[in-house]
């Protein structure tokens, strides 16, 4: 007696079609990445040389360089690091270790999740109104850094909280059972153990800050800057701003200069991401709970 109609052939065919479809779309992302890198390299490689790194922007494509943008990005990222990392990690510690369940903690948590989703251009509007105009910081590095810090703060807090949460509770209890105070426990055990995770998050946040363009355009950073900033009150340019500037010019030659700038930007980001991966691997070897 057999009441089943297995219909095997048809089902196997469906299965195969579905699998190949999934496979095709999955490998498409690799294809996109390769095409993007190939395209940018073809366009920009011949402009990429030491002069390009050492020259200031110019009206002539052959003389154009990214010196001021490179220095501007370095300044900006250093300032963002100094401003956002302590505050971000402190917030994460407070939310994860001190106020884990209260109503206030819940409110702040929802708030941070939403801040992480606010479009970057809105942060630009905020920076323009508060830092550039209200505090009269003008189009300075510090105005840009403050704006960018607010933007990456949620990223750092969320990543740091995850890293703190990954530290086993037994470590905290072990410390408390030795008569440690809460801060001693956090400072000596929880923070060191979560440091690799926090650092990975911080690096990702900093790469976000290096690549962001819109908020800086909002605060007026898109200007001709032919010098290296010497103080936090100086005007500045950054790599993505310079790339946007070149890419939006009509001459085809500047398209290629923009590609050269993109190669530099991508190399910087690649270095940062590689560092994050190395830290992650190191931590996996060191902490096997």
């Amino acid at each position: 007696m057999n009441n089943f109609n297995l219909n095997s052939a048809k089902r196997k065919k469906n299965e195969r079609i579905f699998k190949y479809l999934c496979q095709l779309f999955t490998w498409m992302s690799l294809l996109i990445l390769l095409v993007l890198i190939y395209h940018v390299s073809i366009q920009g490689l011949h402009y990429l040389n030491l002069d390009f790194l050492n020259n200031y922007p110019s009206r002539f494509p052959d003389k154009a360089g990214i010196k001021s943008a490179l220095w501007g990005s370095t300044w900006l990222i250093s300032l963002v690091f100094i401003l956002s990392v302590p505050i971000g990690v402190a917030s994460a510690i407070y939310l994860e270790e001190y106020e884990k369940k209260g109503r206030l903690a819940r409110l702040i948590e929802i708030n941070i999740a939403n801040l992480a989703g606010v479009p970057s251009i809105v942060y630009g509007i905020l920076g323009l109104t508060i830092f550039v105009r209200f505090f009269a910081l003008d189009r300075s590095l510090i105005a840009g850094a403050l704006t960018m810090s607010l933007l990456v703060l949620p990223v750092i807090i969320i990543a740091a909280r995850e890293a703190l949460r990954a530290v086993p509770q037994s470590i905290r209890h072990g410390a408390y059972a030795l008569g440690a105070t809460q801060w001693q426990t956090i400072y000596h055990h929880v923070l060191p153990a979560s440091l690799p995770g926090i650092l990975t998050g911080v690096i990702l946040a900093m790469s976000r800050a290096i690549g962001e363009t819109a908020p800086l355009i909002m605060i007026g950073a898109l200007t001709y800057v032919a010098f290296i900033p010497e103080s936090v009150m100086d005007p500045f340019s950054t790599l993505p701003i310079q790339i946007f500037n070149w890419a939006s010019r009509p001459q085809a030659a500047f398209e290629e200069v923009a590609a050269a700038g993109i190669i530099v930007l991508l190399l910087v980001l690649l270095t940062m991401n590689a560092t994050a991966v190395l830290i992650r691997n190191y931590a996996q070897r060191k902490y096997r709970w």
Partner: protein
Amino acid sequence: MFFRFSHSLSMKIKERVIKSILALSAFISIVTTLAIIGVLGRESFTFFLTVPVTDFLFGTHWEPLLEPKSFGILPLMAGTLLIVIGSGMIALPVGLLTAIYLSEYASNRTREIIKPILEILAGIPTVVYGYFALTFITPVIRIVLPQTQIFNGLSASIVVGIMILPMVASLCDDAIRSVPVTLRQGGYALGATPYELTKSVTVPAAFSGIIASFVLAISRAFGETMAVTLAAGATPNLTLNPLESIQTMTAYIVQVSLGDTPAGGIEYQTIFAVGGLLFIITLIMNIAANWIMNHYREVYE
């Protein structure tokens, strides 16, 4: 006894001071939200004293910089929606299928290749994607459809789709992987093929997580700025033709800030009204996504 415990009181004070400093840091995020709402609200309020809200929301012409001025947001909204729908049509299905492949079929080796690639794609700055759309995607489209304008919604949609794809894929992957193994094994034990299992067990079980990831991705597309500024154009057209030049809300805000619009004028106030609308839309979507996500977590823990 070698210990001295006498500094207990000073230690208690130290603990309290540290806690206050930490709390203060956490409070900065609240201040940021209030500042965003305050800034957008205040200037928008002045704007709406001159321009009636209904004219703004339902007007079909957006010409704030030309006389006679008109402030109907529908052309910008149409431009934005074109990008959102276009990119969603690409990123949502492709992202979901990628996630299914990663969690159901792929070997560990494949995962180890694909995951970092998705991370790299997610980390590429938007200005680079804008450049890619302008100098690669658009020329390719123009080979196939020669009537396409240099700046067009299609190219920008494709590139925004590529941008939000990694987010959809990784969030859907998380959602699918959180479906209990026992549920899956139950299906396989009944003789289901992976496709049948995915269709009738895994995806339905992970449905709310998948929807939440879709909503988050769409909200990202709404707020995307640089790629659309570079590739989609600066023409507020009330059109859904993807081959024409358009302007999104974000691109408009950039356009104003690039010019030398004096602070305080009505043109200057428009960026707050447009930015405010953008903020409200993305906020609602983010809250919805988080709500859906928390809802489904409760089901599975």
